[in-house]
């Protein structure tokens, strides 16, 4: 499997007042392939946001290497070029929106990288379309006059306009209601298909990206635990709570069923779960 992004033993510590140091990341290794939807989960303060910033070319690790393809990004590489290939959406759209109009705001990224004229307009329109934002209605309005959901879409469009190959999102689901969440998940799927991108969602809620994510990494106080498959997370040996996280109700149910010896082809599909439960109950009753 050709890797797109690889983190090798990344550590990051920052100075505290009084000559101490706090370790945010401790020899973290992660591998991201094209088309992955990756979930980096951790409790608040676990180091996940720091990790996102290292992956996006914004924070140099104190030790270890970040490899993009063959290039070690922080050592010799073209950091600015790397930042173009990775996009990072921060939690709150207010951390990013600034321009007079939505159109100009979305154009900020590509413009900084030299796009002009037709190419620029295309990039902006494509991004708006991917997130479901109507430029006819909202394009010339100030980003600050938009509703919360529209602001988030505008901010995402601003990041997608650069067509990053690795898209990182730092806690994108906080404060979203059900429809907002579904909308975002669809936008992510669309973008992934459209650009062949890898998507990394950093969150403290496993349920946010549960059915969508293919691989999981849980960060606990700067150290990671990797799970290649959703099913691995559900294995009885893993104490998710000890890692500061909680499985979504789907996961808890699936885990209980798996632990009772029931097999599930797709632990995230409610019909599969229902059939398995019904069958098991019949079998039980039969005795």
């Amino acid at each position, binding site marked *: 499997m050709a890797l797109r992004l690889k983190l090798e033993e990344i550590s990051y510590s920052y100075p505290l007042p009084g000559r101490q140091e706090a370790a945010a990341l401790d020899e973290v290794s992660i591998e991201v392939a094209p088309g992955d939807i990756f979930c980096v989960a951790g409790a608040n303060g676990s180091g996940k946001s720091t990790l996102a910033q290292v992956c996006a070319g914004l924070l140099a690790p104190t030790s270890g290497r970040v490899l993009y393809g063959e290039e070690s990004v922080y050592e010799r590489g073209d950091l600015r070029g790397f930042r173009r290939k990775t996009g990072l959406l921060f939690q709150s759209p207010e951390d990013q929106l600034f321009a007079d109009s939505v159109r100009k705001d979305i154009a900020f990224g590509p413009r900084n990288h030299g796009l002009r004229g037709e190419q620029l307009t295309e990039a902006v329109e494509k991004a708006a379309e991917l997130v479901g934002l109507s430029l006819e209605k909202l394009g010339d309005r100030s980003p600050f006059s938009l509703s919360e959901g529209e602001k988030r879409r505008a901010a995402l469009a601003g990041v997608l306009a650069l067509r990053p190959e690795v898209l990182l999102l730092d806690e994108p689901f906080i404060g979203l209601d059900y429809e907002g969440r579904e909308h975002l998940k669809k936008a992510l799927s669309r973008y992934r298909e459209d650009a062949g991108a890898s998507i990394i969602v950093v969150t403290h809620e496993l349920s946010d990206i549960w059915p969508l994510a293919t691989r999981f990494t849980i960060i606990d106080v700067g150290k990671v635990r990797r799970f290649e498959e959703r099913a691995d997370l559900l294995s009885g040996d893993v104490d998710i709570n000890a890692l500061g996280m909680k499985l979504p*109700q789907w996961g808890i149910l699936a885990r209980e069923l798996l632990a009772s010896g029931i097999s599930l082809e797709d632990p995230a599909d409610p019909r599969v779960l229902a059939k398995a*439960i019904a069958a098991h109950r019949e079998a039980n009753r039969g005795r």
Partner: protein
Amino acid sequence: MAGAAERSKLQILVEELRFEYPGASAEALSGIDLEFQQGMLYALLGRNGSGKSTLARCMNGVLAPGSGRVMACGLDTSCEAGRRAVPATVSMVFQNPDTQMVASTVEEEVAFGPENLGLEPDVIRRRVDDALGLVGISDLARRQPLRLSQGQKQLVAIAGALAMEPTFLLSDESTSMLDYSARTRVLELFEKLRGMGIGVVHVTHFLEEAALADEVIVLDAGTVIARGTPAGILTDPSRVRSMGLDPLAVTVVAYELGKLGHSVPEILDVKELLAWLYA
């Protein structure tokens, strides 16, 4: 009638409440009629923009009613004097732990409310100690609030609200920025407060939290579209989705089981489903 007046001191009554934000194109609240009792835990649900926060802020006097009336513990919020007096009986904690803190130590933070009420220092001291003890953070008393974790900050905020010795505690999505263990702690605290006779109204997105409430109220476009027990409101996944909410996993599975011909009682959590499975 002495009885009703006494009773109303322990209730929040919302009558035909309407509210519109200045410059908005539509009403945020279009006629709400509700009653909240002391000693109960309410969950207030609804999609973004449904009016839940607005309703909560009308209930503690932050916003004055556009029309209609809110009687919070016998105080009418239509007049300024009423709105000024309400925070002493109806307290609120907010969504963002960081933007609520004013002081440089936890105990002074918790003391902020009683200080505003002009109480004597020894009374303030007692209230602060009681609130910190109730919330379980007495050991954090001399720490700096902004250096604490998000969950701890929220507990400090709740202690600050409790130091007002309120009849009701309103929570405006106070758990939505917290991780799982912090949320659990807050919900446990809400249940404890309810047991002590304080009325808790918790605005939330998380149906698992709503499942713990005595009563669930769902808003949509400024009106109440559902009201009842969690089992009565949250067990039908298509209804839940139509209200703009994310159905609980077990209810979706129960629905599928129903399609396969099994009749499953109203369940809200995994334990109940497993109990049925092995029944």
